[in-house]
Structure formats: structure tokens, C-alpha cells
């Protein structure tokens, strides 16, 4: 016999105290009140008949004490939760996977699906028999165990209470693998999935998940699917007019009925646009908002139902985006005169261009970018990143090859390079060019069949781009690609990426640009909480599961110096997650999940505690009523 509940030592202590209390109450009960009577002879008359029963009465009282002590002993034994050794190793091993994806925030069952799931699991925990063990885990973008595999009710209930729905979709395959790994080798294994069924296929890169002998049960949550969602939201500035921007968003009706929605676009907290849309059942409606202006930083899209009611899932009714930050780039052009170059740089009003004669290089001040047009002087400090156009000398961080007199063109282009974004260079004609040869780590962006013509690299932290011909000896400057190339290059240097990610998607691992000097950054989540995230290769890495605006700050080593704070946005933007229609069945590995088995075999152990309290209460009550002369 083993005591798996309260230890034997404690039981003895409780027993001694409670037993003493009962005996004291009993003695108090036996002490009779003295009461004066005017004439005891009358009492004697009626008490003569009672004499015969007094012995029985005494016995009855002693029996009452013994019964109370026996009751106490039984209850203490119950508190100890005694089990036989055989019973200890048997019993089921259950992993409960509670869906914590965004769809579980739906409010079609009050107060929410996640709360309903919690309640269902709580009932299961209370229904565990003495020898069952259970583990509570939350599945969202990751799988998070919230308890150990235990039969301890309090720990399991704490685990259930810690379940929280996120703004991400659930990684079902990973969760199943986790559960299967946990239950491997254990007797009577069972996985219980508590979800609305909006789950991805139970398969990942390693193939479908096989559960083997593990029993799979499914507890469906949810009732209906009235939902409209913003499933896409993106914003970008125009490359040539960065004061203006365009917005793309997609609104989806995931329910079976048509609905009217009101779509608002809010820039920096001010309403920018408001429109009403009619969405047919399961319709995806993309909307473009070109040529917008007004907002400088944050954009938020919001939908509301036209009839003033709320849909079942508020989490996907908002989407957030952040406009790329704008600042003036300081550009130093070292040239003897190049009209095409100077004209192209005039196109962007956000460039501060300083033209310097090669003899007067370097000009005063610090620059983000220096363009060497046909010259290669020694690079002075404060020149920033470098763009070499038609480099000829040897004072360059790469090797300039022989002159090719034949007409050449760009035969191979790195289409993914940000330098070539929005450009078409394949039919550019070049009269003469020098082949360029960089180092191993340098990147060839464009090359002719004879060799590299456009390379990109980094030396001692200084970025450079080199173009191996004089643009005036080609038709390149006559094309729209020329200014785009220049602006792309400057943007690349100043890290003002026109391919800026206006928002991240929840449930994925984000690589957020951050200061490469720090090892960690502080991330402020939309709910205001802060956490430290590591920085690797100049990117903070974080698995985000909440939609909204985030702030990331990197601490500076010098005290008093200002922190480098940048913002970014994250959205759910997942049509599958917004489709909140509950699924009554769940199928994994070709096998349908069954209903949850009987979880009320064992007696609920808290009952013993309640029983003990009830017995103490009743004893007190009996004692009190006895002396108040109610019960006799």
C-alpha cells in the first residue's frame, strides 16, 4: 500500500489534532448543565422508568464517539490516497493538445472557444482516475507543454489555466509529433485534441505523422462561422516619390452568408479612407489604394460588419502595417561632369547631392554614398558606401580587367538583386567596357558572356558597387532603368529597401533588421510586455504570435546614449485561420479520431477534502445544536 496523496507523517499529525479536537468536543458535550428545579420528587417519579435505558444511552454515546473517530480515520486515509503497488503503474497516459491558434479566439461559444476548450479540459482533469497521468500542451505556431506528465490535479489545472490563444495558426504536425514522442513506450497512450478543427494537414517536411498504437481522441469546440477577415495587407512607398504610397489589402468572407462590411484605413491614428463592401459567401476581395499620402509611419486597416454587429473572430478584423522610414541620403558625386548621372540624381528629392571635382575630393562633411564617375582616388574617411562608375585605376577594392571593344550587353542578370529591381537590362547595348573581378565573397550582379560587368561587395564594412563601363558609351542612360538602378543602389547603401516588409506574418520566425553591434535586443510586444531577443547577423530572431505593432530597441554600450528604436508590424493574414467553421471530425494518418473515453472511472480526489470539511462542519453543527438544545 502506498500513500500517493498526503504523506503518512502529515496524516498522523492531522489525525492527532483532529482526534484530540473530537474528544474535547465529546467531553464538552458530556458535561451536563446544572439546572435547579423547585421539587425533585416529581422528577424522580418520571425518571424511575428511565433508569433501565440509561445504560443503553451511555453505550450509545460511546458509540457516537467511536463512530466519529472512525469517520476521521477513514477520511484521513482517503486524504492519503492509498493505492496498491499494481495500481501505481497502470492507468492511461494522456497528452491533451489544446488548440491555441487564432481561430480559437472566436466568440461563437461564450465567452470564447479557448475558454470553452479550457472548461472541457478542466472537466477531463477532474475526471482523471487515480492512476491516470496527463500532460497539457498548447499548440500554436509552436507546441508548448504547460505541465509535466502527471496525475497531480493542481498542476494540471494550472497548466489549463495557462492556455492562451495566439494570433498564429497551429502547427498540428509538430504538436502531434511532440505528443507521440512523449507517449512513446508508455502504457495506454492517448492523445486528445481539443480544437475547432481548423488545423493544417498532419504532415510536415518529414512526411505524414504516424501515431501507431496511440489512441487519438478529438473534442470539437465551436458552433458557427460568421466571420469576415483581412487576409492580406501590404503597403509600399513609390520608389520615385517616397511621400506617396500604395496599399493592397484583401478582405475575405469565410462564412456561408453574404455580408456587408465597413473597411476603414487609419494612418497615424487618423482615418484616411472609409468604404463599404459587399462580400459574397467565401469571397476574397482584393482592394488597392494607390497614390495615398498623409501617413508617415503607421497604417491600420479595420473592418466592421455593416449591421453594427460583431463577427465571431475579432482577431482578424484588424491589420497593421508600417511605412518604411524616410530620410535624406547625402550623396557625394566625384565627377568631371556627367549630365546623365546628375539628371538621374535630381529625380529623387530626398537626395542631398554634392558634386565634387576629382581634384577637390574629398568635400567637407560626411556622406552616406560617394559616386566615383570614371575616377578612382584614394577613399577618404566619411565617404560612406561607394559606387564606382567605369573604374579605370588600380586604387579600387577589386580588379579592373581588360578593355573590351566589342559591343557587349548584360547576358546574365541576378534578377533577385535589389539593385536591379523594376529594371529591364537584357537589351542594353554597351560600346566598350572593362571586365571586373571581385573577390570570392563579392557578388556578380550582371555579366556579359565575356565577364562580370556589375559587381557588389563589402570591404572592411564599407559597401561598394562597381559598374564596368561609362554609361555615356551605352544606351543605358536612355532607359528608365538607369535612374532606377541608381536609386536602387543608393537605397541599398542606406538600407532604405524598397522591398521593405511592411508587416510580418504571425506564426513564423521573423528576422528583424537590428543593429549588428548588439547581441540582443529588447522587443516590446503589442500588449506592452517586453522580452529580450537574440540578434544574429544583424537580425533579431523571434517567433511572433501576436498581431499588432512591435518596437525593437537595441541597447547602446555608452550610458546616456539614445536607444536605437525601430517599429514593425505583424498580422495574422491567414485565410485558413480565418475560416473558423468548426470541424466535427478530425482525421490523422487516415484514421478518424474518436470521442474522449470515460474520464470518470476514478473518484475525484478533491472530494475527499470536501468530505473532510463537511464532516468537520457537521460535527461542529451537531455539537452546537446539541447545546442549543435543538436536536434533543
Amino acid at each position, binding site marked *: 500500500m502506498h500513500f500517493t496523496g498526503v504523506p503518512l507523517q502529515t496524516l498522523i499529525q492531522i489525525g492527532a489534532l483532529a482526534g484530540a479536537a473530537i474528544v474535547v468536543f465529546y467531553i464538552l458535550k458530556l458535561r451536563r*448543565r446544572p439546572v435547579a428545579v423547585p421539587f425533585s420528587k416529581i422528577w424522580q417519579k418520571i425518571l424511575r422508568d428511565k433508569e433501565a435505558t440509561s445504560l443503553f444511552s451511555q453505550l450509545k454515546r460511546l458509540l457516537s464517539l467511536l463512530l466519529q473517530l472512525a469517520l476521521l480515520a477513514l477520511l484521513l486515509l482517503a486524504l492519503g490516497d492509498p493505492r496498491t503497488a499494481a495500481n501505481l503503474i497502470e492507468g492511461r497516459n494522456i497528452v491533451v493538445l489544446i488548440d491555441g491558434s487564432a481561430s480559437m479566439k472566436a466568440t461563437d461559444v461564450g465567452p470564447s472557444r479557448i475558454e470553452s476548450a479550457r472548461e472541457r479540459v478542466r472537466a477531463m482533469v477532474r475526471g482523471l482516475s487515480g492512476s491516470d497521468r496527463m500532460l497539457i500542451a498548447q499548440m500554436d505556431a509552436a507546441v508548448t507543454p504547460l505541465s509535466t506528465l502527471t496525475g497531480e490535479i493542481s498542476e494540471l489545472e494550472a497548466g489549463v489555466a495557462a492556455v492562451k490563444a495566439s494570433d498564429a495558426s497551429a502547427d498540428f504536425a509538430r504538436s502531434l509529433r511532440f505528443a507521440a514522442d512523449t507517449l512513446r513506450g508508455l502504457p495506454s497512450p492517448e492523445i486528445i485534441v481539443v480544437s475547432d478543427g481548423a488545423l493544417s494537414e498532419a504532415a510536415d517536411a518529414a512526411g505524414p505523422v504516424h501515431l501507431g498504437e496511440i489512441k487519438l481522441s478529438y473534442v470539437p469546440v465551436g458552433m458557427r462561422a460568421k466571420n469576415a477577415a483581412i487576409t492580406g495587407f501590404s503597403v509600399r512607398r513609390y520608389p520615385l516619390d517616397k511621400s506617396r504610397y500604395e496599399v493592397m489589402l484583401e478582405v475575405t468572407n469565410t462564412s456561408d452568408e453574404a455580408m456587408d462590411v465597413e473597411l476603414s484605413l487609419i494612418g497615424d491614428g487618423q482615418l484616411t479612407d472609409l468604404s463599404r463592401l459587399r462580400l459574397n459567401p467565401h469571397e476574397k476581395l482584393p482592394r488597392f489604394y494607390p497614390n495615398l499620402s498623409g501617413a508617415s509611419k503607421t497604417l491600420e486597416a479595420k473592418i466592421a460588419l455593416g449591421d453594427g454587429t460583431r463577427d465571431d473572430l475579432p482577431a482578424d478584423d484588424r491589420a497593421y502595417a508600417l511605412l518604411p522610414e524616410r530620410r535624406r541620403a547625402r550623396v557625394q558625386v566625384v565627377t568631371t561632369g556627367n549630365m546623365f548621372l546628375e539628371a538621374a540624381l535630381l529625380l529623387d528629392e530626398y537626395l542631398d547631392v554634392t558634386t565634387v571635382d576629382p581634384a577637390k575630393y574629398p568635400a567637407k562633411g560626411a556622406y552616406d554614398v560617394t559616386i566615383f564617375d570614371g575616377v578612382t582616388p584614394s577613399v577618404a574617411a566619411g565617404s560612406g558606401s561607394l559606387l564606382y562608375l567605369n573604374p579605370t585605376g588600380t586604387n579600387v577594392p577589386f580588379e579592373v580587367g581588360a578593355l573590351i571593344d566589342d559591343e557587349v550587353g548584360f547576358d546574365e542578370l541576378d534578377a533577385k538583386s535589389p539593385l536591379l529591381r523594376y529594371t529591364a537590362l537584357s537589351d542594353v547595348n554597351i560600346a566598350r567596357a572593362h571586365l571586373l573581378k571581385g573577390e570570392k565573397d563579392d557578388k556578380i550582379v550582371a555579366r556579359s558572356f565575356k565577364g562580370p560587368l556589375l559587381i557588389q561587395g563589402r570591404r572592411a564594412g564599407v559597401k561598394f558597387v562597381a559598374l564596368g563601363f561609362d554609361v555615356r558609351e551605352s544606351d543605358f542612360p536612355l532607359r528608365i532603368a538607369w535612374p532606377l538602378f541608381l536609386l536602387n543602389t543608393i537605397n541599398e547603401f542606406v538600407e532604405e529597401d524598397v522591398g521593405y516588409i511592411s508587416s510580418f506574418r504571425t506564426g513564423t520566425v521573423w528576422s528583424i533588421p537590428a543593429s549588428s553591434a548588439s547581441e540582443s535586443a529588447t522587443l516590446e510586444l503589442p500588449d506592452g510586455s517586453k522580452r529580450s531577443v537574440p540578434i544574429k547577423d544583424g537580425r533579431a530572431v523571434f517567433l511572433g504570435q501576436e498581431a499588432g505593432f512591435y518596437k525593437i530597441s537595441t541597447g547602446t554600450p555608452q550610458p546616456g546614449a539614445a536607444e536605437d528604436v525601430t517599429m514593425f508590424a505583424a498580422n495574422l493574414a491567414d485565410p485558413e485561420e480565418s475560416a473558423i467553421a468548426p470541424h466535427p471530425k478530425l482525421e490523422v494518418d487516415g484514421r478518424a479520431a474518436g470521442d474522449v473515453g470515460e474520464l470518470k472511472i476514478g473518484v475525484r480526489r478533491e472530494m475527499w477534502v470536501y468530505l473532510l470539511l463537511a464532516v468537520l462542519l457537521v460535527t461542529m453543527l451537531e455539537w452546537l445544536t446539541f447545546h442549543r438544545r435543538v436536536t*434533543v
Partner: protein
Amino acid sequence: MGVLDFFKKATSPLSRRLGPSRTDDDLFDDEFQRKLDYLAMVSRRVFTGAMRAERRTKKTGSGVEFADHRDYAPGDDFRYLDWHAYQRFDRLLIRLYEEEEDLSIYFIVDSSSSMAFGDGEKLRQAKRLTAALAYVGLANLDRIAIVTATDEISGRMQSTRGKARIFRIFRFLKDVKAEGHTDLGEAMKTFVAQHKRRGLAVLLTDLYDPAGFERGINVLRYNKFEPFVIHVVDPTEGRPDLKGDVRIYDCETGEEREVTVTAKVLERYGAAFEEYLEEAKRFCTARQVSYFRADVNVPFDELILRVFRRGGFLR
């Protein structure tokens, strides 16, 4: 309220929870005295035709002057049946003879502890009745003496006559305190030894005599006194407010008994109490002893009138 106070309250006898007991200061106030005058007047008006305000002893069989008839009652001596009257009216009547003489009335007030049980109303009622009857007696020119009895004659007021002496009686009664055991037999023996002049002996008592109330009454009877028992009864004593396990003790003897009081026990006690009262009444009636039950809850003046109607005190 502290826990201890709570427990004390929970386990305290109910008698202690009653309000403050009444004092004897207002026992014989002006209102009381006005009622006495009224009662004296009523006693004359009702009985004047037969008795002319003088009191006579009733000596059945030995008297010479026929006074009246009265209905036969069980226990009456057959020798005094008026057979002529029976022949004429077909009713059994007893002949009454009178002999005029000075009548002594002795009031024997039980002053044992049981008379003060509870709120002491029994003793107060006994005092009021004594005073009232004594006043009526004084008004009728009778000799009045008062003694208090426990297991002895504990107090004594010499016989007196004349209405003006009523205040002396008041003073005496006011000083009477309830203490001591009841033993009417012993007390009456002392009483008859101290009082040679026979007369009416009005015994005001609760009859709670462990040795038996019969002895005391019999001693009076055997010594030619005419006993008149006024049985002072507090009905609440028949319905004690008790429940649960208690240890009862006699307020006079201290004798203890343990008893578990249930509704059934209370019912049986009530019956036994009634039986005790009836037993006293039966005893007196069987021996031609005037018996009158005086409930403490009935106003004394009403009781006095009932005494008058009952007969035996005024003739």
C-alpha cells in the same frame, strides 16, 4: 461577543436569562390597600344576611343552633344528613350548626426556598393573599396571627385584631424571606404546640414537601385546627424550559439527578406535575379540608373573590 461568552450563553440555564426579578417594595402599595377595602366590603355584602359580620366556628354535631343547610358532598358525615328535608325535596342536605365565639385565624406562610423559585412570584402571591385575607379577617373582628414555616416555625407575628393592625401585618410580611427546607409536619407540630387556642389555620404553601405534604395538614387536623389549604401554584413549573442533557438539583435539598430532557420527558413531567396538584386536592377534599389553588398568574383580588365564593373562609 467573544467565543467564551458565546459558549457561556449557549450553555447557560434558561432561568438566568430572564429579566431582573421584581422586588417586594411595591407589594402593598396604595392600589393594593384600596383593593383590600373593596374586598372587605364585598365580603360583608355577600354574606351579611347569614352572619351579621361576626365570625363563628363551625362545630358540626356539637352545636346547638341550627344555622343552615348545604348540599351534601362526598365525605360528609352521614349523621348530619337532614332526612326530613330529603323526604320533602328529594335532595341530600347537610345540617349546619353554629356556635358564636371569637375566632382565631392563623396564617401559616410557607417560606422555604422553593417558594422563591424562579422569579419568586409564588412567595409574593402568598404574601398578597395573606395580607388580603388577614385584612378581611381584621375587618370582621377576628383574631389574626401569622407564622412563617419551613422545617420549623421561622417567623411569628403575635395574634392581633382590629383593622388598624393591618400595617403591622404588612411590615411582617415584607420581611419574610424564602430560605430553608420544607418540612410541614415538623413545623406544624411546633405550631400546634405554640398555639393552644384552636381556630382556622390558613396554610399558604406550594406543598413541595419531600416528606409529604399530608403530614403537616394531618397534624393540624388531629389537633382540632381547621386547616384551609391555599395551594400556591406557578404553572410554568409544570412546563420547564429545558432541553438536552442536564443535571437537575433540588433547590432546597440539593439532591441531584442526571436527565436527558426530550419532548417526551417534558410531556411526562407535565403530567406528573398535574397529578401532584390533583393528589393534593384529592387529599384535602377527602378529609373535608378546604382546598384552594392559587395560580400566581391570576390577580390576587380575583383569587380572594374566588375564595369567598368557594366558601369555608367566610361564613
